[in-house]
């Protein structure tokens, strides 16, 4: 199977202030697949995602999205190319209602009536809380509900690439199942997904390819199947067996 890479980072270095965080990250996200980015706390996963989104800029190396070089582009431009991003802290607008949060994510809609009904229904089915609290201020949601809203926002309109930072944290097992369903459905519809995850089961069930980071660099990448099978590798990279 020959796959083209939708997103490609090569030799990316990122500095935050005086700190040198990423030391030459090479990462390829094949089109139409779900790529899992794993690694210990502090390995640089979040930093990598933020660098892709242009929230921090690489000091060296390049980031390509499809045929576009997005290394130096500004965040809104990058998002407009068709990338949705769920940050680690969820980025909920707590003063706005759930509806308003969703409306902002739906770029094509001018007001709430113009949002895609079928898609909303689908979201409501996956994450009932979003419907239930539709007119509530989002700041009042529970931790898990916020997480659901954050993911719902990312999928309210179709996007080519979905980047999600730890979507499963704080979710009840039943909802994690929904989340897994959601991502597999999205994948089926042709969306490419890049996920950072700590929940290994989650990672294993969904991932097509895997990349493991440590100390600001990708130290392993390959297919999920091969990674799952190789316990010694897991042990050495993550300090545990899946």
């Amino acid at each position, binding site marked *: 199977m020959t796959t083209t890479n939708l997103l490609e980072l090569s030799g990316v270095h990122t500095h*935050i202030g005086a700190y040198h965080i990423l030391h030459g990250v090479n990462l390829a996200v094949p089109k139409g697949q779900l790529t899992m980015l794993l690694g210990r706390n502090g390995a640089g996963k*979040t930093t990598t995602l933020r660098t892709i989104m242009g929230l921090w800029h690489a000091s060296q190396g390049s980031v390509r999205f499809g045929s576009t070089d997005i290394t130096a582009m500004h965040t809104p431009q990058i998002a407009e190319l068709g990338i949705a991003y769920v940050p680690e802290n969820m980025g909920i607008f707590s003063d706005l209602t759930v509806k308003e949060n969703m409306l902002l994510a739906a770029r094509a809609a001018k007001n709430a009536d113009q949002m895609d009904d079928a898609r909303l229904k689908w979201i409501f089915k996956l994450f009932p809380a979003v419907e239930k609290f539709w007119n509530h201020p989002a700041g009042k949601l529970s931790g898990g*509900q916020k997480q659901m809203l954050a993911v719902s926002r990312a999928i309210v309109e179709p996007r080519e690439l979905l980047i999600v930072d730890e979507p499963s944290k704080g979710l*009840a097992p039943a909802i994690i199942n929904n989340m897994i369903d959601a991502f597999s459905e999205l994948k089926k519809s042709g969306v490419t997904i890049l996920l950072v995850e700590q*929940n290994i089961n989650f990672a294993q069930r969904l991932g097509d390819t895997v990349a493991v980071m440590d100390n600001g660099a990708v130290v392993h990448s390959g297919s999920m199947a091969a990674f799952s099978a190789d316990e010694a590798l897991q042990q050495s990279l993550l300090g545990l067996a899946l």
Partner: protein
Amino acid sequence: MLETRNLTIRFGGHVAVNAVSCAFAPGTLTAIVGPNGAGKTTYFNLISGQLKATEGTVTLDGQSLSGLPASARTRAGLGRAFQLTNLFPNLTVLENVRLAVQATREGAHRRGLNLWSIWSDHRALTERADQILADVALKAKEHATVASLPHGDQRKLEVALLMALEPKVFMFDEPTAGMNAAEAPVILDLIRALKKDKTKTILLVEHKMDVVRELADRIIVLHNGQLVADGEPSEVIASPVVQEAYLGVAKEVA
């Protein structure tokens, strides 16, 4: 003994915690589980005083805490770590912990209002803080500012602050959420050590069922704000409410 009686809170029409009566004995670890939005965090908020109950009471060792503000409840012996990390972002890791040590040790409320002694003279506080940081494996980063810590380390610090308070009641709200599987044991070991102490009351909100199964002496289940199950871990997990509403039938992943 921590006890809530008929504890209720309404937000407009929505009853987030509905008449929950429950007692927690020292020396036991009670896990609180339930779907997202079940009211677990809100229940904690009611106990620790971040929210005012619409109805019901909270007592600790027979002393009523109901009218007290959060700070007074903390001084009375309730300790709390938050679900969403909530620290002093521009102070160093060490100072964060030291502040918590100062807050509750040795009648230290007065010490907090002490305007005239020099802070750095209070060596004992620093030593204690250092010790706690060693416990949560953050010693190496004690001079880093909190804002620059990765998410996982912030979670650890959150727990460290709780430890520093040396409360009678420990309330953990998803302490390992977002923590790497290799790091989580540090926190879990701490909780195990607390359990050994046998005098502490421990409440733990956690979605990872393997953790719950291993640590809990007892599980209570909240659903739509109501207490719907209470008992032995294996029993409760096997019960149909939990299987259906929480675990999403048998497709357990965590």
